[in-house]
């Protein structure tokens, strides 16, 4: 995903601002789906073997690889628990979200 795209919701003030044909002008990054979450994954990196399995299976592309470590992107993670379920080290805990 190109990082250049803005995480901004596009709103047309009038029909003049709309493109002549329906086309996408911006990404869904404005939609911060982390708000959907009830439980959140927390990785215990001391047990992590960097197998990449959590990253591979995240349906929301919400696990980043930062300096060769998995890092949950809480802005978007929906808290499905798939990463925790699939982690072979069982080092991802799903904990109650504090709101």
């Amino acid at each position, binding site marked *: 995903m190109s990082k250049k795209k803005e995480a901004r919701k596009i709103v047309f003030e009038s029909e003049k601002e709309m493109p002549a044909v329906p086309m996408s002008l911006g990404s869904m990054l404005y939609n911060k789906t982390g708000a959907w979450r009830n439980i959140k994954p927390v990785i215990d990196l001391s047990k992590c073997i960097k197998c990449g399995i959590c990253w591979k299976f995240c349906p*929301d592309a919400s696990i980043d690889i930062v300096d*060769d470590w998995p890092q949950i992107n809480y802005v978007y993670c929906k808290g499905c628990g798939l990463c925790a*379920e699939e982690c072979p080290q069982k080092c991802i805990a799903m904990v109650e979200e504090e709101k």
Partner: protein
Amino acid sequence: MSKERKMTLTIPREEFMSPGHLACQGCGASLAMRLALKGLGQRTIVCIPACCWAVIDGPFPHSSLDIPIYHCAFETAASSASGVRAGLDMVGDTETTVLAWAGDGGTFDIGLQALSGAAERNDDIIYTCYDNEAYMNTGIQRSSATPVGAWTTTTPVKHYKKERKKDIIGIMAAHGIPYIATASVAYPEDMVKKFKKAREVRGTRFIHVFAPCPAGWKSRPEDTVKLARLAVQTGYFPLFEIEDGEKWTLNLKIKERKPIAEYLKLQGRFRHLKEEEIALIQQEVDTRWAKILKSCGL
């Protein structure tokens, strides 16, 4: 764990699907798209008919995919893709891959005619059906891909689905198209490999992707990959390829298949099934598995 060790990456790192999309938690269909595009890459145009994915992508003028999308009518995934292909050919672009991405309702049911037409003409498109085994976008109605025994809102518990799942692979194989494959979100390496391979083949290519749906299957969102894996390990959804309608290859040999009950019991849509009914389903899985092994020359 040593700090120096690199993260193991078994599939391409580049993402063409962004977070912020509208799929439910643990949606197999969204994982399917993420993986498929890792195999196909940037030079891809996708045609999406009415289905969950038409919503998942996001409302105009936003999109969660980094490739052009053509939203088309429910029954027209294949014919739209054929049209986009013809347009690209006219401007001399033979490099861009045209992908039709439809649900099981859009493939097994209403889009079958357009798909058959494209396959008969051997149009140069990749047609992918992400199969969540019902019309999920409109509220879990049965399709001809819904398996025997399943609850849906149109096959309520008292009248659960009695008809067999349509053999879409058999239908596509009969068209003699150059490439057919089954793929599963539980096997990302195999899936990405198949999309990469399909990209290099010319003519109509058909990929049937198994995509669990927690909302429609009444399963836990964290079980999506487990269910997709069990579907393969029980022999319910074997991973194989068919080249030129004839050469069958089983991609994952399974020595000891797990009982189908293990797969069924994790899903609320099968909760009403009694032991005898599960035994019948097991028989059907066994019969189909034997047939596929035979086709693969095993």
